[in-house]
């Protein structure tokens, strides 16, 4: 706490994670692209993720929870908008690239903001905001005020017992197919083949997070819980910054009150929207979770950070889940 800050490169290019033209995001040798089954919603930004382990090191299989990565691991996440979401990857506007670096004192979060020319990205600790517009999946132009978090806000979410931590890369989130340049393959199997993941058990013994918008991947309950887990439980769990609320939304939570069912709020303030409980089974409209997901207002909207727009499709999923929930006592 309060020691000399580490010195990191001012420019993204200095990390040498891409080859050739920086804006093409072509990974250099040693970077493996990956995706999560159900990712965090970030104002409709698309994300391209990579992992790089130090030469010769590897990860041991562990579940549940985020994998234990060796010192020197680099996690890369690019946030960008395709000009037309119906043609993803074409005419990308890259906004920021976030790095999580594990060194001998733990994880560090770094944010590089891209210039308008898309030729370089620069380290920024105090955050920023940008207006972005794109054509959405329905073919309608959408404008979003995209907020780039400051360094403290990174830890607002990436936080376990006050230590900075990755959120996404758990075995169950990685247990899905990825379209590699060499072909499509299960990510965990690929990692094993590449020698970066050891002790992978039988396929049937590996947990798998449902894909929130793919009904073939899990039941409505599984998909809603996966969505709440990745979008909320980085704060809303016993080790997280929202532990004061007593509302915990991890995938493994089984206590119905703790999950919000008929639970009165603690410090919601106007975020309650005049509703009495976090989840009223059978009635999303009267549930605080629904209210806070559909709100734009700072001080009401949830998650607190990472969105200024409403995730209509995610909201629809949670609404259906609550509306179809049978009341329990």
């Amino acid at each position, binding site marked *: *706490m*309060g*020691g*000399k*800050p580490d010195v990191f490169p001012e420019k993204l290019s200095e990390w040498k994670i891409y080859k050739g033209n920086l804006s093409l995001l072509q990974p250099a040798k040693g970077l493996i692209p990956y995706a999560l089954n159900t990712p965090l919603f970030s104002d409709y930004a698309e994300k391209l993720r990579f992992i790089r382990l130090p030469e010769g090191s590897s990860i041991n299989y562990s579940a549940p929870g985020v994998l234990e990565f060796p010192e020197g691991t680099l996690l890369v996440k690019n946030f960008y908008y395709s000009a037309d979401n119906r043609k993803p990857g074409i005419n990308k506007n890259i906004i920021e690239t976030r790095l999580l670096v594990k060194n001998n004192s733990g994880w560090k979060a770094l944010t590089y903001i891209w210039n308008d020319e898309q030729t370089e990205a620069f380290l920024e*600790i*105090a*955050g920023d*905001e940008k207006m972005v517009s794109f054509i959405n999946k329905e073919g309608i132009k959408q404008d979003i*005020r995209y*907020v780039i978090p*400051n*360094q*403290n*806000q990174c*830890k*607002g979410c990436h936080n376990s017992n*006050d230590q900075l931590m990755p959120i996404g890369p758990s075995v169950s989130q990685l247990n899905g197919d990825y379209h590699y340049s060499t072909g499509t393959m299960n990510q965990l199997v690929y990692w094993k083949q590449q020698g970066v993941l050891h002790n992978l058990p039988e396929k049937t013994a590996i947990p798998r997070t449902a894909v929130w918008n793919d009904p073939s991947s899990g039941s409505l309950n599984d998909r809603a819980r996966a969505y709440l887990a990745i979008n909320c439980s980085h704060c809303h769990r*016993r080790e997280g*910054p929202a*532990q*004061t609320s*007593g509302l915990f939304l991890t995938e493994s939570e089984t206590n119905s*009150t*703790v999950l919000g069912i*008929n*639970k*009165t*709020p*603690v*410090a*919601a*303030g*106007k*975020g*309650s*929207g*005049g*509703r*009495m*409980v976090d989840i009223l089974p059978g009635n999303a409209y009267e549930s*605080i979770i629904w209210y806070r997901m559909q709100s734009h*207002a*700072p*001080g*009401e909207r949830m998650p*607190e*950070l990472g969105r*200024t727009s409403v995730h209509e499709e995610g909201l629809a999923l949670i609404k259906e889940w609550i509306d179809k929930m049978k009341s329990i006592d």
Partner: protein
Amino acid sequence: MKYSFDKINNLISNLSIAAIIIFLLFPLTNYAQKDFQKKYQTQMILAETGTIIELPEGSFSLTNTLSLEGKKKITIRGKGMDKTILSFKNQTDGAEGIRVSDGSEILLEGFTVQDAKGDAIKTMHVTGISFHDVKVEWTGAPGPENGGYGLYPVQCESVLIDHCVAIGASDAGIYVGQSKDIRVTNSKAYHNVAGIEIENSLRAEVYNNEAVENTGGILVFDLPDLIQKKGGQVKVYNNSIHDNNYENFAPKGNIVAAVPSGTGLMILATKEVEVYNNRISNNQSAGTAIISYFTTGKPIKDKNYDPFPSAISIHDNIYVRKTGLPVGKDPLSFIIGKKFGEEVPNILFDGIRNPQLLDTQGKWVLGQCISILNNKGQSIANLDAEHGFKNMVRADDSLNCNN
């Protein structure tokens, strides 16, 4: 020189003064305000142990939370609560005005936080957090659109709130939750739903404060389903708690939305609370209320939660009340008004006692009773909440036990 001066003169004659002002000043102001946010946020991120971050005199508009994280021995110091104003009226991001987390020995002093969209100043997981000469306020008429908490230390240790002011919070002006070793002193809270609230906290002293014209002046609460439970060892003394008759404007769903307008001091389910040498006057529904969680009507599912108040001592206070019906619009005020009319007793006990703390004769075991002794203007009602308020009675001599 002459040439350019003429040019400017021409320009002025061609444009209206107002247009120039808009053209020149607005972008500059916006730039300056954004600059302020970035400058101080950067300082807070880079601050090394022992740093004093000085805020200048003036009024500054911020659009996002200012946050301090993982720091030790940091002071954020303005030029005085009426000289350095941080306005969050135009806030677009962040759930609080200022947020301090995971730190130790943090001092906030000499500034005002105005109109935050959520909570004004939240501090979490800080050991040694002090607020001195800090004002938190929501301007304009109090309403449910105001933020929830003013000064909001939660899960902190060694909390000091001294010479602070809190105005207009739609939950609690000064709120200390799930914390340990707390002093709230020399402070003033008004036009909040709850003036000062100590919740699920251990070892708190609340003294020399003024809680006035809130819905409820001072609340000492213990609630279920939280990480830190079993709050207690709270002393409330030498405070002036008066005219807390403000209409309850808390958004529904929040526990304070159930506090009757006209409440001076309320003790809910907390253990070991001593209240003395206070002047508790003209709180027209309940000068002091001592209640169990059952009386809130909310279900209890937390098996580790103790819903009963016990070991309460209320002595040597001065009670004053104007003749008149209770002002609250809630069911409890209604029932009390119906029973007692314009002469409502100053101290209301819901009558629900923890059966595990009673002996075979139904008397409190030693040290656990609700003791009300030696107060000036003392009058007591037993509400008999357990039996649906059926046998509500004046019981002025019923709680003269010693702890």
